[in-house]
């Protein structure tokens, strides 16, 4: 038997509550909601098909079993692959990836911030041209551009030749950590510049003048006004650079050596060479969770500060 509640509801309703919108307005709101759902449907379907479903497949594979031939058997569900995530090799590669991503983010910020600031001080026409130039590399294939770096950095490439000519001796650039970081910074710098530019462009320069007027030196005005107000751009840019740098595959694969294996290459190796799909899937899931947690934590921290 279902007990009948003593119905305290009416008493509660006496508290303040927003007045119900009049009939026609409620109708209009419903119609707007219907229209919204209709517009939202195609992207929703796309996201489910191309993102959620593949992710689900990866999640399922991560708890499956690797057969003796390398075939993945969707049976004997277990968490063995996850247990292997704590092996020293995995931790070493993950640590290296984090280090490279952090360094790339810092370098992009150090280069991108002054550049974005300088951009905002240009005349509008010049600004538009420079912004197009920032985005220009996207018009050609990333793979091709990375191969171009191989030529540039190679042992008989122009840079090494020039260094030798000025008496710096035989310098090895390609397949070094330097080449990897250079490639990552090169590839992801626009992702830092664009959000920084958009937040700096919105900054009211009179605020900087006000700070100077109140006795702040140029540096103090930057530290207390410009920097805190451009923080949303810094956060967005950092996240946009850090995440792809962490999971980068093409750049370390083409410009790095065996000692610069990053998680991207490591995951690929599990799928293609080791044929250990459950482990590769578990790695992917772990990366996803770590990145998601880091991003959320980062946004939270920034929100609290501002």
């Amino acid at each position: 038997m279902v007990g009948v509640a003593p119905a305290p509801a009416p008493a509660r309703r006496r508290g303040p509550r927003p007045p119900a919108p009049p009939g026609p307005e409620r109708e209009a709101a419903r119609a707007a909601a219907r229209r919204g759902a209709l517009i939202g449907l195609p992207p929703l379907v796309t996201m489910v098909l191309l993102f959620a479903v593949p992710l689900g497949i990866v999640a399922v594979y991560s708890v499956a079993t690797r057969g003796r031939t390398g075939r993945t058997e969707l049976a004997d569900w277990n968490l063995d692959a996850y247990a292997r995530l704590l092996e020293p090799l995995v931790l070493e590669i993950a640590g290296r990836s984090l280090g490279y991503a952090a360094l790339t983010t810092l370098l992009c910020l150090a280069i991108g911030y002054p550049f974005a600031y300088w951009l905002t001080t240009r005349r509008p026409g010049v600004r538009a041209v420079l912004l197009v130039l920032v985005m220009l590399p996207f018009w050609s294939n990333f793979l091709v551009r990375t191969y171009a770096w191989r030529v540039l950095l190679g042992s008989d490439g122009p840079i090494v030749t020039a260094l030798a000519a000025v008496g710096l001796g035989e310098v090895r650039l390609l397949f070094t950590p330097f080449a990897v970081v250079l490639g990552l910074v090169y590839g992801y710098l626009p992702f830092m510049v664009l959000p920084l530019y958009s937040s700096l462009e919105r900054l009211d320069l009179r605020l900087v003048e006000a700070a100077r007027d109140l006795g702040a030196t140029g540096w103090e005005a930057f530290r207390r006004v410009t920097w805190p107000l451009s923080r949303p751009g810094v956060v967005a840019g950092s996240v946009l650079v850090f995440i792809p740098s962490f999971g980068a595959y093409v750049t370390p694969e083409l410009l790095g050596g065996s000692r610069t294996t990053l998680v991207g290459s490591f995951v690929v190796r599990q799928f293609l060479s080791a044929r250990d799909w459950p482990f590769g899937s578990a790695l992917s899931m772990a990366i996803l969770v770590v990145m998601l947690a880091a991003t959320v934590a980062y946004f939270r921290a920034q929100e609290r500060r501002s």
Partner: protein
Amino acid sequence: MHRGAPRLSATAGTVPAVSLRRVTKRFPETRLDDEVVAVDELDLDVTDGEFFALLGPSGCGKTTTLRMVAGFEFPTEGSVHIHGTEMGRRPPDRRPVNTVFQSYALFPHMTVAENVAFGLRMRDVARDEARRRVAEAIELVQLRGRDGAMPGDLSGGQQQRVALARALVNRPKVLLLDEPLGALDLRLREAMQVELKQLQALLGITFVHVTHDQEEALAMSDRLAVMDAGRLVQVGTPAEVYERPRTRFVAEFLGDANLLTAEAVDAERVRLPDGTVVRIASGRSAGAAVHLSLRPEQLDLVAAGTPVEPHLDAVEGTVARIGYFGSAIEYDVALDTGGPEVLVTARLGNARGVVARTVGERVRMRWTPDSVTVLED
């Protein structure tokens, strides 16, 4: 300083608070190989402790002038002195002035109290003293209790007060105000005019107030300067400038004026377009064309044919248009020129006993000769 000691400020008072000497500011015009002259050989002295207004239409150079005093721009030629010290290329943070910006420029990421405390923090004022002065300043602009609010949560009028407190807390020698009331609605603007004026009198700080609103400048300032096209046209008390405009521009920019072209008869008399000969205060050589300004509110309207008393001058004409403004009524009267139409406007206070006129009615306009100002151009 004890009583009876010679007052240093007596001698200090003779040094202008702000002094501009032949200040010119040219901005490079990058498109053409040309330069834009924003301020042209400006000479100006602002007396210590006065409320000074810089008045002019947009683009006249008044804001550029203010920015050169604040240190946001440097003069191309000439010099800016504040209390006798040449500012040269000294940056804003090393000048004894503070600015209230047009759109307040409050730091959106700081609370009201943090905004007000900013200047004191930059100047390393001790924490206890800073806290006390911030509280005082917030009290002064009547924002007590809003210390913790963010600027975005305040109304326009409140933001204006924060901007004022943020500047005044530093006890500047000169407070620069760049159209501070421009963003407020009419009623609030009028209330703030009174308040700013009271505040200035209370603190005794020199205020330099930039505005394009002539009523604001007239109502608030002790003295005002009218600027046009980068040049100073006239400086004086509101009464001097309003009642004795030097040029056509000043006459038209400050209030309404009837501008008439007349012909000098002799040193004291001119002939109006309808042939009437009237008296003027200052003379011109006979035969020369003379430009006159007559304020509408200084004209009186009586029935045609009313005898003219000897201390008055008068013309006759026909009422062409009537404008009803509630507190005042304006009559546009066409003079009997026999040629092109010349309209003279009279504004009569809508007081009891004022006889209403109708369009087409013959009237006589009369005035005292000292109401007529001879313009330079």
